[in-house]
């Protein structure tokens, strides 16, 4: 193979011929103050809010963005080091807005919020760029959320179903498994990759330790999830402006895939995890205070609600005319000591379409994922569940609600009547059934079968420690001996008319299970 250099030369020649020789006219100003990633500039009379400006510092050109327009000066944030910039340096307006590279080339890569590779791989050359901060699609461009986004977590898919295009908050204290739930959701999308329903995942890490981010990337690689994932990393060592734009940059990268559905291309579904928005709010507070914007509650600026609402509004299920693509948002918020009434948690709770609430008490009691299904909700996802799941999940919710009411009694150790005792037994086994190992997503049909078995009382007389093994054996049974019945369910997507067959098959399995385990 040899490269035809003359052909490449002709492309370059054409570029040079077309290159305009007109003068470059730009607005200029001078730096009067610089530090902490913020610069105040005198001049730039006609610059506009949000416009990109270029600082000509000693260490080359640094890009910045106009944030404040004041009577005589302009407040800018810097997307690079402020070390080389001095008082009196020239600042040039560009007439452009901030854009990031977008495209398939980003899949499997770890990039910074400006789309530059930080994984040690080759530089990323995409054909297209997209504006980072845009206005979300309007009503006409959308349709209601109606397709499920499977997490592969029984507790979520059964009772807190999330649809494609939904915004579901993951909230909880530190060390309760917030990131793990989202990573499970990303890993579960592996089953769909390469199909019509493929989901591109974008993990945006804001203000985290670099070691944590590298751990996440490692986990995704081990589970084969990096092929369809982009990691946007703005770790704690990045400047506040970069941490502030990271979620918007990640969303812009996702929107490229969402909109390509309009041209009939796949993948057109996107899942974006923002880990986490509390740290982004802190970064925004820092730069707002440095820009001398007035502080409000908890010293956050007045527009901190808009900061998150305009980001999460970009989660969309596009109308069929627009290709039917979707962008699902999973923002993460870290609470302090379970305080959900702090400023940022209440804001984001009110913006999103529901929340998955993780509790440290459950986590330490061994219920993992530590999801409190009692107070977790999903406001739109119910429409997006498959029929079979809807059929079994209703009774699951009731069983658990009854269990929570009686739970306190159980601890008193008093004598209970048989009906109450039965409800308690059922509840405990359901809780046991909803426990699930990390990075072990369940297929949705398997989930239906497990919950079906539980809600029909097949587990009620099993000793608690055996529930897990029984479930595994049962699912294996339906993959082997009874696979024909399973494929019927897979096709019909509903238990209607099949209930008796399933119940009989499960009872058969239980009989053999009891026989073997009684001997042992």
């Amino acid at each position, binding site marked *: *193979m*040899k*490269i*035809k250099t003359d*052909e*490449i030369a002709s*492309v*370059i020649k054409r*570029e*040079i011929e077309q*290159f305009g*020789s007109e*003068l*470059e*006219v*730009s*607005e*200029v*100003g001078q730096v*009067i103050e610089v530090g902490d990633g913020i610069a105040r500039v*005198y*001049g*730039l*009379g*006609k610059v506009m809010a949000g416009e990109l400006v270029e600082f000509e510092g000693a260490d080359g050109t640094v890009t910045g963005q106009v944030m404040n327009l004041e*009577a*005589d*000066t302009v407040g800018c944030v810097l997307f690079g080091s402020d070390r080389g910039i001095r*008082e*009196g340096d020239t600042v*040039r307006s560009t007439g452009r807005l901030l854009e990031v590279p977008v495209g398939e080339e980003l899949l499997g890569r770890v990039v910074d919020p400006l789309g530059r590779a930080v994984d040690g791989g080759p530089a990323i*050359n*995409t*054909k297209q760029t997209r504006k980072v901060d845009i206005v979300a699609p309007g009503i006409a461009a959308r349709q209601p959320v109606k397709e499920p986004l499977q997490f592969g977590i029984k507790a979520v898919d059964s009772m807190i179903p999330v649809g494609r295009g939904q915004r579901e908050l993951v909230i909880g204290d530190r060390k309760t498994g917030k990131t793990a739930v989202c990573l499970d959701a990303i890993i579960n999308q592996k089953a769909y990759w390469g199909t019509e329903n493929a989901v591109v995942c974008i993990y945006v890490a804001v203000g985290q330790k670099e070691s944590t981010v590298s751990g996440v990337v490692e986990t995704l690689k081990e589970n084969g999830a990096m092929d369809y994932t982009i990691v946007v990393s703005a770790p704690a060592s990045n400047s506040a402006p970069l941490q502030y734009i990271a979620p918007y940059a990640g969303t812009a990268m996702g929107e490229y895939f969402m909109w390509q559905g309009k041209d009939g291309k796949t993948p057109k579904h996107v899942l974006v995890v923002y880990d986490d928005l509390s740290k982004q709010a802190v970064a925004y507070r820092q730069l707002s205070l440095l820009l001398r914007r007035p502080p409000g509650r908890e010293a956050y600026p007045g527009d901190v609600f808009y900061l998150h609402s305009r980001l999460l509004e970009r989660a969309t299920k596009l109308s069929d005319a627009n290709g039917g693509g979707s962008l699902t948002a999973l923002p993460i918020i870290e609470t302090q000591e379970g305080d959900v009434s702090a400023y940022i948690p209440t804001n984001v709770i009110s913006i999103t379409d529901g929340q998955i609430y993780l509790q440290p008490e459950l986590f330490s009691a061994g219920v993992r994922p530590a999801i409190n299904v009692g107070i977790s909700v999903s406001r739109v996802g119910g429409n997006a569940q498959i029929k079979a799941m809807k059929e079994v999940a209703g009774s699951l919710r009731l069983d658990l609600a009854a269990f929570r009411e009686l739970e306190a009694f159980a601890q008193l150790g008093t004598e209970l009547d048989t009906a109450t005792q039965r409800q308690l037994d059922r509840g405990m086994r359901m809780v046991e059934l909803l426990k699930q190992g990390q990075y072990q997503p369940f297929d949705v049909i398997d989930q239906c079968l497990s919950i079906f078995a539980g809600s029909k009382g097949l587990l009620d007389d099993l000793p608690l420690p055996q529930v897990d093994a029984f479930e595994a054996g049962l699912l294996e049974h339906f993959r082997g001996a009874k696979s024909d019945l399973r494929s019927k369910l897979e096709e019909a997507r509903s238990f209607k008319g099949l209930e008796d067959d399933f119940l009989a098959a499960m009872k058969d399995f239980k009989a053999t299970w009891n026989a073997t385990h009684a001997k042992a």
Partner: protein
Amino acid sequence: MSTATDPVAKVYADSLLQLAQQAGGLEKAGAVADELAALDAAIQAEPAFGELLRSPMVDRDRRAEALRRVLADWASDLVLRTVLVMNRRGRAASVANLSVSYRDLLDEVAGRVSVTVFTPGESIDSALETLVRDRVKQAFGLDATIESQQDEAMIGGLKLRIGDRLVDGSVATRLRRLRQSLLGEGNPEVRSRFTEYLEDTN
């Protein structure tokens, strides 16, 4: 560095300009500008003078005394009184920014604009200066006050800075834009048609 961003100095400069214009039109206003420039030069040249204006340790009456003695010989009554009023109101520190603010306001009133001509090598000749002045008058309707500066980094060509506007015809900028356009637009084209550029040698 004295800048025109001091809002206090701007207010006093505006008042001073109006009084100067009432007293003797643009001519008087121009004379005041020269006096203020001299005052600015004195502040730059003598750090102790700047310290006297800024320091809160100095008593107002004693500072007024000192200012009278320094300014009496050469400053006009108008300038002296402005400086003393600023001192009395605790704004002596802004005296250092008065000249720049005043010059900007006067330029605006008189329809003037300061133009900096950047060249890579030797300074500009009078023919070029006249040309620039004519063109600025044509384009903006303003009289240009021309200042010349050397900048070797621009390699060749000419750069004009008219107020906040930079008209850049330097070779360095053209090379930068050519580079951007080749990387930004040419590069993807070469990449997308990469296979066509490969010649099978077997």
